[in-house]
């Protein structure tokens, strides 16, 4: 295939004879030759990005200043939606519940996936391959089925957990009628479902830490914990930032699993923010108001991302 027939010597000659770093005039001409190719290659992604990110983003911003209900003309009401939002207790509840969920779940998921990853690259651990596969199974299970599995396990009157508690002499725990306990179940179920992905990231990162560092530390008499603190943790810092960022954003948009697990119950007490947007935007058709909530959430997410990227810079420069 590479045997060409039509390459004109006029165009290919300068390319070979010229070293990579050459005068700007020439390199600009050379660059111009490759203008169309990247446009063709990425055109579809650019169009889709414009259609499904830029357009909805702008539309949401516009909607948030209207009382649009899904049909009819846009009727601008200024900042009324945002003013109403400030006094909306349901919104605050959804937001605080989401923050609580993120604050508890992200560190838990981080600790579990890092701990497991460390054990899975440990030289002395037995049965690593099988263990890795088992840890990975929850990744296959859809959020809806994850909800079903944990609902079945933690059912108040029929669940195995309460049965075990009762048979050792305890009283049935209100896993679904107590809001805080229901949140605990949501957090545990999320950690179960999402550990696998972070674990893979950590395994790759730990394997990339140069072994010589550990050997040198061992010679200096550092114990396992010291080696972990002083070598592994700083060595995987960029991945840590990435994992925290991805799990934070993933948990900010949590919706499906909770839908199947308890539907944000008891009542609406554990309603998370995306569910709140879904219910106002689709079930109550208050598109304008839901868009205002979306805009606030976007600002929150952007702030989180910017803060964490600062950590990322620091993490990369430290090691």
């Amino acid at each position: 295939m590479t045997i060409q027939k039509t390459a004109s010597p006029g165009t290919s000659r300068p390319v070979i004879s010229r070293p990579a770093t050459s005068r700007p005039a020439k390199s600009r001409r050379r660059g111009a030759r490759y203008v169309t190719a990247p446009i063709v290659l990425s055109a579809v992604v650019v169009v889709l990005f414009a259609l499904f990110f830029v357009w909805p983003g702008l539309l949401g911003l516009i909607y948030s200043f209207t009382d649009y209900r899904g049909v009819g003309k846009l009727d601008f009401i200024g900042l009324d939606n945002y003013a109403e939002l400030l006094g909306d207790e349901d919104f605050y509840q959804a937001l605080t519940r989401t923050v609580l969920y993120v604050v508890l779940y992200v560190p838990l998921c981080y600790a579990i996936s890092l701990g497991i990853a460390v054990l899975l690259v440990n030289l002395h651990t037995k049965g690593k391959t099988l263990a890795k596969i088992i840890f990975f199974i929850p990744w296959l299970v859809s959020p809806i089925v994850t909800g079903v599995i944990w609902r079945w396990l933690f059912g108040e009157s029929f669940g195995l957990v309460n049965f075990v508690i009762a048979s050792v002499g305890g009283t049935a725990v209100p896993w679904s009628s107590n809001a805080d306990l229901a949140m605990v179940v949501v957090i545990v179920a999320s950690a179960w479902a999402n550990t696998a992905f972070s674990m893979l990231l950590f395994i790759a990162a730990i394997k990339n830490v140069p072994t010589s560092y550990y050997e040198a530390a061992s010679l200096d008499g550092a114990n396992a914990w010291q080696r972990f603190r002083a070598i592994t943790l700083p060595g995987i810092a960029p991945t840590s930032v990435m994992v925290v960022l991805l799990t934070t954003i993933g948990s900010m948009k949590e919706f499906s699993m909770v839908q199947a697990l308890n539907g944000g119950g008891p009542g609406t007490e554990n309603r998370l923010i995306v569910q709140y947007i879904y219910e106002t935007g689709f079930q109550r058709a208050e598109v304008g108001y839901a868009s205002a909530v979306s805009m606030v959430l976007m600002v929150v997410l952007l702030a989180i991302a910017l803060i964490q990227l600062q950590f990322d810079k620091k993490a990369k420069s430290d090691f």
Partner: protein
Amino acid sequence: MTSSTQTRPSARPATSAAAEPTPPRVRLNRRNKRATRARRAVLPTLALWIPVLLFLFPLLWFLLSSFKPGGELFRYPLTFWPETFTLDGFAKAWERVDFARYFGNTLFVSTITTVLTVFFSASTGYALAKYKARWLNVLFICILATTMLPTEVILTPTFAVIRDLGLYNTLAGIIVPSVITATGIFMFRQFFITVPDELIEAARIDGVSELGIFFRIMLPLAKPIILTLAIFSFQWRWNDYIWPLIVLNDPKQYTIQVALRGLVGAENIDWTVLLPASVISIIPLAVIFVIFQKYVMSADLNSGLKD
């Protein structure tokens, strides 16, 4: 706690002591050595396998329960192992839920989206890796932003866009918006950066067109990335819930996840149907995972997401 047992990552092949030159005076006799090795294995192995069992248990309980007959499901005392194994629940679930249709829809959506995702991620990743232009840097930042600001957050306006494009209640309405994934584009960009520029230069000298280089040289080179992303993308789409829920209105178009939601969202959940139905819904992905396990587990995800 568990991490304190960490010693050395096995980045290098498991050569262990055998390949290391041991000075004669330190050399222990073989039995002694095996004993120390066993002793060193106890703690990390235990620390690993206790969480393994904890992870496995909910799934086992769920699987075993799906084989219990209706009467046994709620009969106290609960038994871990079903007294009578029965497939009645599965038969009932198969009858109640039109799996053939939902699997068909889901398979269609997942396959088409995966093919498109892989192809366009590869081409964009290649453009980002191998061409220099200011607008490409901007595009890269934009794609980065999509991981930070997922579309679930702007649910209602995105729905309005899908509706205005005439995609409401069509399977295309869930395929088209999910084609772009930042993860996929990063994976390919990262991979193509490692491909030496000389390869491209040589092809150019041979007169291969720019697109020819991508199709005939780069795409075949990226086969491992293609497979990994294909599996990931297929899993994402198979398990997608929120978009199918919003975009699809006609039950005939439902994907399996939305159909399952109909069972779990009912006033009184019929567990005798829900449990087997949920088990059935996992089977296709489980089969794919068994076949391609290697590509998922060894995926160098880091390279895709770090940058």
